[in-house]
């Protein structure tokens, strides 16, 4: 299989805004032709990362290359990268035609060629006939498509999109998600897409980069991130999950026994030692209930309520220490009765065990190796 090149490479990038360390030792490789989403809550640094790739922000440290060239060596107007802005940024004093044609005019292409390209792209985004309209006369969805057309018509190698669908209503947003995906596949352009909506990222992306507080938590395919979250944050941010802080108490043939505050539980996968502090994550649809105790599990609680959301029934079970567990069952299947006591369990292979930060502190105290302490402090502290 031919190896796919990296089209954008981010190496050891740090960014400070004054004293604020907003991007911490970021390392990322974006493959040519892929649809990559940068996902995270507000303030996690995803937009800053995008702007650094675009050249509107300057990294404080580290290297960013696009197509092998270092980003800071060229001005934004000199590159083969185009951006779709969150506010669309359409030029209010130009009509749709001139907005879309702007980049081509800057390249000094002949008028006839520009005309053809613009009308082709407008057809592609389903806006034929809109050439003479002005931005103030367009709806949100139409403005958004003009913004995309304006960027794509220049055939950039990389297209950067900064939460472009944020201002649209739900139905339109879902429609546009599919259209964008289709467009990307058709044109073969690398899309780097910033969003805070995990469902959106999961729907559209080939890979997702999850960021939190300036740190890249995990980079992988949607199914990988969902089924095998590498940290508590990712597990919690993507989809719903039941999380347990626990201590490893034993291991038997790949299955770990762990002790949480409320009782014992089982999980599988990873490499941990006894007495290591971990976080176990199980998805609600994989969590099961039973009227009688299940071997290996000591979690017992009361069913507080059942919520019917159409396709699923979500049950909330409260354990002795107040910890709430979510179980989802498909509508039509058996679900726990309200008010009853149930025992919670799951297939150990469905639970993902993750290292936690407390584990690092623990190991630092246990193995006082100043060398590794300094290195760890430099990369992950703060």
């Amino acid at each position, binding site marked *: 299989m031919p190896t796919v090149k990296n089209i954008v490479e981010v190496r050891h990038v740090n960014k400070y805004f004054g004293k604020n360390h907003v991007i911490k030792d970021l390392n990322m490789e974006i493959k040519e032709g892929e649809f990559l989403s940068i996902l995270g809550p507000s303030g996690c640094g995803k937009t800053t990362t995008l702007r650094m790739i675009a050249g509107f922000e*300057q*990294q*404080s440290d580290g290297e960013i290359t696009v197509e092998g060239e270092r980003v*800071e060596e060229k*001005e934004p107007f000199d590159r083969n990268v185009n951006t779709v802005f969150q506010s669309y940024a359409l030029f209010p004093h130009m009509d749709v035609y001139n907005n879309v044609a702007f980049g081509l005019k800057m390249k000094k292409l002949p008028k006839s060629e520009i005309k053809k390209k613009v009308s082709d792209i407008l057809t592609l985004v389903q806006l034929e006939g809109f050439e003479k309209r002005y931005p103030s006369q367009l709806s949100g969805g139409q403005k958004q498509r003009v913004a995309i057309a304006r960027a794509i018509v220049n055939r950039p190698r990389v297209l950067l999109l900064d939460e472009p669908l944020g201002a649209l209503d739900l139905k339109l947003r879902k429609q546009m998600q599919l259209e964008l995906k289709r467009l990307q596949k058709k044109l073969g352009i690398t899309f780097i897409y910033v969003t805070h909506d995990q469902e959106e990222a999961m729907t559209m992306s080939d890979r997702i980069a999850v960021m939190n507080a300036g740190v890249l938590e995990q980079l992988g395919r949607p199914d990988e991130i969902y089924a095998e979250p590498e940290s508590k944050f990712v597990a919690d941010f993507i989809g719903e999950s039941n999380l347990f802080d626990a201590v490893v108490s034993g291991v038997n043939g790949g299955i770990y026994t762990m002790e949480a505050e409320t009782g014992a539980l089982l999980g599988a996968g990873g490499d941990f030692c006894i007495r290591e502090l971990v976080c176990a994550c199980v998805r609600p649809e994989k969590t099961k209930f039973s009227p009688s105790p299940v071997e290996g599990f000591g979690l017992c609680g009361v069913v507080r309520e059942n919520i019917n959301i159409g396709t699923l029934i979500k049950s909330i079970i409260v354990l002795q220490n107040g910890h709430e567990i979510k179980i989802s069952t498909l509508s039509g299947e058996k679900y726990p009765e309200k008010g009853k006591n149930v025992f919670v369990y799951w297939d150990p292979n469905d639970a993902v065990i993750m290292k936690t930060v407390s584990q690092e502190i623990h190991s630092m105290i246990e193995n006082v190796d100043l060398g590794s302490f300094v290195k760890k402090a430099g990369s992950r502290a703060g």
Partner: protein
Amino acid sequence: MSIQKKYNLRNKIIPVAVTVSPVAVWLVLLIAVPLLYIFIISFCSTDAEHNIVFSFSLANYAKMFDPSLLTIYANSLAISVLTTVFCILVGYPFAYIMAFSSPFKKSMMMVFLLLPFWTNSIIRLYGWRTIIGRNGYINLALEKLGVISSPLTMLYTRGAVVLGMVYTLLPFMILPIHTVIDKLDRSYLEAASDLGAKPVKSFLHITLPLTMPGIFAGTIMVFIPSLAYFFVSDILGGGKNQLIGNVIERQFKEAFNWPFGAALSILLILITLLLVKAYMKTGGSLEELGGV
């Protein structure tokens, strides 16, 4: 050069230098330096040929308090105070009506308010002579109506100068007041009426206090110029109603005593600064003084 430094140069230092240096140079050379210069020469004196002698002396500042000048100050201040008061009385209702009109009416009122200013002020003031002169239209009308038996003397009185001042400076009172009333949150008035306040009470207790900054701004924009608009006094005052501005003008055009004129100007600047400081202390903002 490091990446960050090069970036800063390209994206911050050069753009700032290109956009701001023309205005900075202009302001320093043509405002800061000249003002500094007259501050300096206010402490100087002149020799027989009216050249400036650069030796420090407070003579000019002493001369300012000469008894002959004190009557002029008093008269000038009286004119300015009257002008300001009349501008407020006439201008506030106009600004109020304008602020509560429909957008179309508002812009029409604004246009017609400012239109006369595209015509020469001197000629417009001269036109008043035809109206308030002994044989002017007002006297004519009053005599015809039988209100008076012999013509009133209106021209060349202090009242005429005040009239001319109000005529010239009225928009400078109306604009700041209008801006403030326009920005007034209508829900204050709605809340007041909801709580039982009749329109007059609502105006006295809510609108008026909240629009004081506008009145203050208008006062500054009217009072200060009225001390110095010597041409109004020349045209309608007949040489009898001298302003501080007239005195300064004479120093430069007749007496050639520039240092004394400079000292008087410093006095005007001080009065201005005091008023502006008081204005800002009561919460006024400089932007409103721009009238824009």
